């Protein structure tokens, strides 16, 4: 899977493919993958070594403000079509067990999870792919109706971890083990373990190997809820979210006089950004992980820098919440790490 292992031919094809999706050229992109498929490239490699890396570049370009949201979405839609074109040509007969593949409720970054579903199909599993943002009750109804051997749950953003946890517990309560995957569970899968997933895999092919080796128990043994949730900071933070946002917007207006001239849409965008910070803070509280929050802050700082938003705004927002959340010791500790990360980004910019 490493870039070094790729043949020069595949790398050149990858460039052509990336160019086509960048131009939202569905037919061009499909032609690239089908040519490779006909030339004997295994479908799984096309999915994981060509389409997946191209999609990662799309995400990076969006973060760097090189690509608009529209272009990012258009490219992803074309990749979806390319995936469909590849798997339509290769129709493996299912000879292994049945697996349900779903994205966490609220999770719309569906392509990585879709790639897993297709890889499992290629390996011979009977796969039900439920798509993006699957509501918990819908997933459980599906599990009762189809009785799969496992659920593969994708979570791309750590923001959705509280909901992912609810879904993991729900699947386990109906006796189906859960294989967790996706960047949201942490690069080392530590959040998957914390939230009681029965297994975790760093990539689609690793997940397929794990399933084939019987790496999942036939009946899950759910873990107890993390002990740190007993302090109810997550619960109170979630409940106080609207009030905290209102207070923060007021305080921000006083601190940044320029906000007085903001349009309603700009004000709303600012409120949304602050809300996003609170949601990530909530997720970090939920899994009690400062690194999760400081990574988010560094990433956001990068995105804001690329969009020319003043760096002070981010640190300022974090300090506001730090001041407001007086009776939240854990949240304050996490915010302090975030402030350090934001300031680090700031000084780096000035140097």
């Amino acid at each position, binding site marked *: 899977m490493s870039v070094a292992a790729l043949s020069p031919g595949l790398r050149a094809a990858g460039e052509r493919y990336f160019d086509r999706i960048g131009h939202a050229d569905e037919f061009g992109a499909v032609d690239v993958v089908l040519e490779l498929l006909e030339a004997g490239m295994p479908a799984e490699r096309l999915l994981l070594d060509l389409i997946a890396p191209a999609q990662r570049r799309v995400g990076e370009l969006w973060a760097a403000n090189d690509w608009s949201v*529209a272009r990012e979405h258009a490219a992803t*839609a074309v990749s979806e079509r390319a995936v469909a074109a590849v798997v339509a040509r290769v129709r493996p007969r299912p000879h292994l067990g049945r697996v349900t593949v779903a994205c966490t*409720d*609220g999770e*719309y970054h569906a392509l990585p999870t879709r790639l897993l579903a297709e890889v499992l199909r290629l390996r011979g599993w009977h796969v039900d792919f439920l798509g993006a943002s699957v509501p918990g009750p819908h997933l459980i109804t599906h599990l009762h109706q189809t009785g799969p051997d496992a659920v593969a749950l994708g979570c791309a953003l750590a923001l959705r971890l509280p909901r992912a946890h609810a879904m993991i517990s729900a699947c386990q309560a109906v006796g189906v083990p859960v294989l967790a995957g996706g960047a949201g569970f942490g690069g080392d899968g530590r959040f998957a373990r914390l939230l009681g997933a029965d297994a975790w895999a760093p990539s689609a092919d690793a997940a397929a190997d794990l399933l084939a080796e019987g790496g999942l128990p*036939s009946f899950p043994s759910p873990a107890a809820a993390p002990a740190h949730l007993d302090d109810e900071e997550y619960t109170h933070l979630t409940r106080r979210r609207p009030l905290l946002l209102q207070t923060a917007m007021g305080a921000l207006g006083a601190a940044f006089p320029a906000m007085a001239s903001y349009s309603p849409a700009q004000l709303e965008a600012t409120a*949304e950004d602050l809300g996003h910070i609170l949601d990530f803070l909530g997720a970090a509280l939920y899994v009690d992980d400062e690194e999760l929050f400081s990574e988010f802050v560094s990433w956001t700082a990068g995105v804001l820098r690329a969009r020319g938003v003043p760096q002070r705004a981010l640190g300022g927002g974090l300090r506001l919440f730090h001041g407001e959340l007086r009776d939240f010791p854990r949240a304050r500790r996490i915010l302090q790490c975030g402030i350090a990360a934001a300031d680090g980004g700031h000084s780096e910019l000035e140097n």
Partner: protein
Amino acid sequence: MTTARSAGQGTRSGGGEAPAGLHGEVRGGSHGGLRAGLCDDPPDGFQDDAARVPDEALLRAVVDACGEGVVLCDAGQVVARNAAAARMLPAARPGTAAASAGEALSDPGHPEGESREVAVAGRRLLVRRESFGTRHRAWYLRDVTAEHARTEALLAERRRTGFLLEAGRRLASSLNPRRCARAAVELACPFLADAAMVVLPPAARRQAPWLRSVPGRPVMQEGVIGPAEVAQVPGLTEALAGFPPVPSRWLDPAQVPEWLLPEGFGVAAHLLVTPLPGNGVPAGALVLARGAGGEPFDEETETLVRVFASRAGAAISAAALYQEQGETNAILTGGLLPPRLPQPAGAELAGSLRAAQQTSLVGGDFYDVCLPGGEAAGGEAGGEALLVLGDVCGKGARAAVLAGQVRQSLRALLLLERRPGRLVALLNRCLLASAVPNSFVTLVLGSLAAAAGGGVRLELVVAGHPPPLVLRADGTVEEVASRGSMLGAMREVVLEPVTVELAPAEVCLFYSDGITEAFGGPSGREMYGGARLKTALAGCAGMPASAVVERLEQLSTEWLAGRVQDDRALLAVRAKGVR
């Protein structure tokens, strides 16, 4: 025994030998002997009142009356034992070597004074050794056979209770027959048997599905068998017919066919076939086998298996019932699900439907696309495709049924009338004649045709519904200027048909009020509103129809932040560019 030990310690500390009175076999029964001894002796059993030293016969009687066995050895030779010891360890006769009594009187390396348990001729003895001086050793024996049996029985009972608890937990969790059957075999093997198989009642073409668990292998083995194979297994036909179970001892394991057992299992030494009782009809049968060297199924196990089978049967049959109803439900709601969208000439379609009721996928919002000449023609035949997105009064299954009726009525009416305005007026009359009370419907209906100079032309009718939005090539968003009355309420409807031209890459978006009237946002109490939807759509310029719909749905879901209140529907038409 406390006395004997302290006496021994006293002797040892004095460095002397054990009392000579214990030499030789102590005769007589335990309690009878004690009483007899006391009667033979002087009134209080002491020879010399002044010294109060007990005589040998008295000491012998006292030791003899002890329930604990005592064996005294002198330099490895048994020299004396009491009645209890004679009973527990007949081989340890005075005059024989202690070692000849087996491991009871031989424990090299075992610490003195500490008890250990040994099995002697069907008894369990607790043995302790004490030394008296350099030559004498005394062995104290306690018979714990009954105690041991009681503890064993208690532990076995606890294991059975634990097993049934675990069985209850696992069997109750799933509403899927296959998962329940899987849980049953995995519970049964290895706790009840070396191999376990559940055979479910014969289904299609009299084939009975089975599941088998193999110890040490993660993947469940599954398959189907016909009536001939079922008949090969002793007792299976009867069990599947729901007859009472036959005790294991009446089933001949030699008749077990090879296919029944996992590969490498060897021969079955014991077989038990138990019916899984269901809702009046059997839910299947549980086949258990123990291999060569395995214990036969005793009465207790057979009782346990019957209790287990009744639980497994209840779980499997409840799941089968749920499954059946789910399948019926799926057939009934199949026509209510959003359709797979065809791709009419010159345009690209994408839709999304999110039901408020998250367990199902149906609700009061609906969309549909009818191609000219039906789906078989593929829409490439030319002519106009009909697009509709609507919202019926109410939520959940009731609303979904009405939505399905509206879709069916439209398809039927399309055979008579293709002009959008007149079609909608006809639909209104259908709804007024409907037997369903409050059949109120709002909708947007459009007929789509390829325009002469590229792009597409949409003839639209808006009936009591939020008017569609149009995303122009320059990124501006306009609302279609058309209004009309809700359907199903009045005899006369007022409609304003309008024509919208879409140049290549321009998008027309139909949506339901579940999108715009969603309460949420930063405060959690704000309505999404048309203005936000227009801004969001403007941000979708250049995206394919599927990406437009997905992005708008995502923004709406984020706005709601888990507070789902209403069905939400989106349908986008994008005019294709020239390739």
